[in-house]
């Protein structure tokens, strides 16, 4: 059974189509990243998964249950870190976790939860004095109460410092190792890239693609760029490289030909890299350093969302 399944889900607010016809399946046990720029319809989609907002059309199933009909059944098995939440400023972090434990009818230890998210020592401080990062840690801890089968984390890294982000990643991995399904959204891509099995990209209210991180890279932009530092740039080098089959572009960077510099070779297949290095050396240069640049998800993402908005303008 899929952990999350949406069929033709759309949401219209008055005249605007916030979300259009989204079909999404998150398999049980996977770590699923939900990406998109702000205003892409990501939040509305998650709000619908959480039953904060009701779809105009379409069906949603969380752990096999319609969240609108049986919100309590869904919640009992789900841990939620929502976006735009607030706490009781006058109550302590521990009191908040205790409330969650009460509501899950769980026998978790509030101190253990707070320790796990790195709030040791701040348990009894009023949440009103917490920093943004501490609140986010508390919210993450509350999502972990009662060992949920599904974690829905909306922009979990927002407000976290690098340390907090490391904790978040560790926790996501630990939970995933125990078989918990994790659904997390972000507009910051490297976090998703680091922990997710699959990624969905949303823009302009529609789902653009769902794929593995590697798969995305291949479909979108399989190129990797070889960057060679050389003691001298031979005159014929560009031409020699261009003769190679799977070399897409060659970019020579040197103060003037004949002096040391760098040669960037964009390959459509990484298998061609050693042949390319061979040609450079044949041309009379000594390679002093080799670097490889894979296109980052960030670039892929930019490419994807740009092309879709181009399509919109058509």
């Amino acid at each position: 059974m899929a952990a999350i399944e949406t069929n033709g889900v759309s949401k219209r607010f008055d005249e605007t189509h916030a979300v259009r016809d989204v079909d999404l399946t998150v398999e049980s046990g996977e770590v699923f990243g939900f990406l998109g720029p702000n205003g892409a319809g990501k939040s509305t989609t998650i709000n619908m998964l959480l039953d904060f907002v009701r779809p105009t059309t379409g069906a949603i199933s969380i752990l096999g249950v319609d969240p609108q009909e049986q919100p309590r059944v869904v919640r009992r098995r789900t841990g939620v870190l929502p976006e735009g939440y607030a706490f009781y400023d006058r109550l302590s972090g521990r009191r908040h976790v205790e409330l969650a434990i009460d509501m899950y009818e769980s026998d978790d230890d509030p101190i253990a939860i707070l320790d796990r998210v790195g709030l040791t020592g701040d348990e009894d401080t009023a949440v009103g004095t917490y920093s943004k990062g501490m609140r986010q840690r508390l919210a993450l801890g509350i999502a972990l109460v009662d060992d949920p089968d599904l974690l829905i984390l909306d922009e979990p890294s927002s407000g976290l410092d690098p340390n907090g982000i490391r904790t978040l990643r560790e926790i996501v991995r630990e939970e995933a190792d125990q078989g918990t399904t994790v659904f997390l959204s972000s507009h910051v891509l490297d976090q998703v890239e680091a922990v997710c099995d699959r990624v969905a990209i949303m823009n302009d209210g529609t789902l653009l693609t769902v794929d593995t991180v590697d798969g995305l890279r291949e479909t979108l932009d399989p190129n990797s760029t070889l960057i060679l530092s050389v003691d001298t740039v031979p005159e014929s080098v560009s031409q020699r490289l261009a003769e190679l089959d799977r070399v897409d572009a060659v970019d020579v960077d040197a103060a003037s030909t004949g002096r040391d510099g760098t040669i960037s070779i964009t390959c459509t297949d990484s298998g061609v890299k050693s042949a390319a290095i061979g040609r450079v050396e044949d041309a009379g240069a000594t390679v002093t350093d080799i670097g490889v640049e894979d296109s980052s998800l960030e670039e892929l993402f930019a490419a994807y969302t740009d092309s879709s908005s181009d399509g919109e303008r058509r």
Partner: protein
Amino acid sequence: MNSVTAIARTDIADVIHSRTLWGTTGLMTTLVAISWLSLSTELVEQVDTPLLTAIDSFGLWVPLVAIVLGYEAVIGERESGRIRFLLGLPSTRRELIIGKYLSRVSVLVTALVASLGVLAVLVFVRVDEIPLVPLLSAVILLVLYGLAWIGMAVGVSSIVSSKTRAVAVVVSLYALFGPLWEQIVLPACVRFVELVTETTQSINLTGRLTYADEPTWFLYVARLSPLKAFDAARYYIRDLLEIALTGGQTTAAHGPNLFGLAVLLCWAIMPIALGVLFFDRVDLE
């Protein structure tokens, strides 16, 4: 049910720290005490039940405490985003409203009982006796009246889309049922009845409603306002308790007086019920 009590308990723990709440309660107690102390000695000697005279001014002040305590109960949670934290936990929207209502009701009842206690002491000091039945009826009435206003405030809070609107609506209701009711609504009703029936209605708008022998329609219409219903129920509940406990009797008409109690109950329940229905459907962005 577990979620309802968990939400209610947490809400109480938060609300009891509110300075506005205790400030308003203190103000209410002070004003009610001043009203009592400023009654002339001749008047105090004439009244049949001093305590029930003393609680008269609660009619004006309980709504204000209830409004302060209730107007942001739900919409405040929506505006701050706390509702996303609470509804992210195993709970339903219905449980959230009911939990909030129960919390605010218990805080209000505590405040009212404390306030009444202070007043009862002042009454005792002045007339040297506090009979049990009037005290009991005062407690019952204050709780019922408090429920009506907190029901209205929390109900409105579940329906409106901003705190500002919540304040506007509950303050308008207070104005309507308080000053406007006696000055405009009831006189207008009297004129209307006179025009339609081509009669002259002899009506004393400020008389003691419990035993009033005004035309029947008036006895019912007047009690639609919780303030009037409160005023009428002061002596009626006392009479009912006496009949039940000590075999007393009453000259009060049961029809309109029972209707007045029903009106208070309705105000305690209906707005919350409407709030629950409405809130179940709304998008919480």
